[in-house]
């Protein structure tokens, strides 16, 4: 009865002591670590918001429609990412490529929105890294998230290109899944940032 597992390369990868593939386990450990990265950045931002609530007129700076739109875009990209992992597991390459391409496209739109937002803040609203403590914490927090998004786009793009070569094998579905985990995590971090950095500012206490 060992023929079943012998023939499925994905099952083959699960032959570890715990039954979780090495790469996936390492990725989850990395994500646990990344929680602390963003936890530290978010607390820095929130602490200074709490200590200096009036340092900038934040509602005047923010453009919640744009940010809402980019949040929507990122959620959609996460949906497509889940579909591409699903397609990769089915070894349905054309579907996986379309979904991956869509994920990357939405990721690029998100990044574009952020670039636009940053240049708008800097040039129209005079909010820079050194204009106030709010500028410092805001740009470093959202910038770090943006760097994560950019890396994710690069990573997913690599797999999109790789899937067109004949070196792409069935086992690589795991690699796509691991890249997907990273992408989803970037998404959940944005869910938190969208709430605690943007939306909370609009509540009138």
């Amino acid at each position: 009865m060992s023929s079943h597992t012998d023939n499925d390369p994905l099952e083959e990868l699960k032959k570890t002591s715990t039954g979780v593939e090495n790469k996936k386990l390492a990725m989850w450990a990395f994500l646990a670590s990344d929680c602390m990265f963003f936890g530290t950045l978010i607390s820095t931002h929130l602490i200074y918001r709490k200590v200096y609530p009036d340092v900038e007129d934040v509602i005047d700076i923010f453009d919640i429609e744009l940010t809402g739109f980019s949040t929507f875009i990122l959620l959609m990209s996460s949906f497509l990412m889940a579909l591409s992992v699903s397609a990769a597991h089915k070894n349905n390459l054309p579907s996986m490529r379309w979904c991956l391409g869509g994920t990357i496209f939405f990721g690029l739109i998100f990044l574009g929105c952020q670039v636009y937002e940053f240049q708008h803040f800097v040039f129209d609203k005079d909010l820079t890294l050194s204009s106030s403590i709010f500028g410092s914490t805001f740009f470093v927090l959202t910038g770090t998230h943006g760097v994560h998004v950019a890396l994710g786009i690069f990573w997913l793009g690599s797999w999109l290109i790789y899937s067109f070569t004949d070196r792409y094998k069935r086992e690589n579905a795991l690699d796509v899944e691991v890249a997907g985990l990273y992408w989803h995590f970037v998404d959940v971090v944005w869910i938190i940032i969208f709430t605690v950095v943007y939306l909370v500012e609009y509540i009138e206490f």
Partner: protein
Amino acid sequence: MDASQNTSNSVDHHLAEEHQKYFTFFNVSIALIMLTAIELVIVYVPIHPGIVMGSLVVMSLIKFLAVIWWFMHLRWDMILCTLVFLSGLIIATGTVIALMLLFSEDPSGAPMI
């Protein structure tokens, strides 16, 4: 039982399962968008800010958990992945909360708590 039949069986099984997942993912993403829309609107609704704050926290928590539970496959994976991730998540959350409490200041700038 020959190997090829076995393989096709397993692939069929995979297909059915992945097909099932498609609908789950679709529903989850619709829910995520609805929640985001509600979040966007609720901040303008003239009710007690505490309620707004509370519902924002609850909704983003639901979104957060939905993504990691369904999109990130924790629902289908070994419990070990969840545990590893939770170790980081719990310690990070605890640290953020503790820091927020530690920075409750009195007017002179010295910590109060």
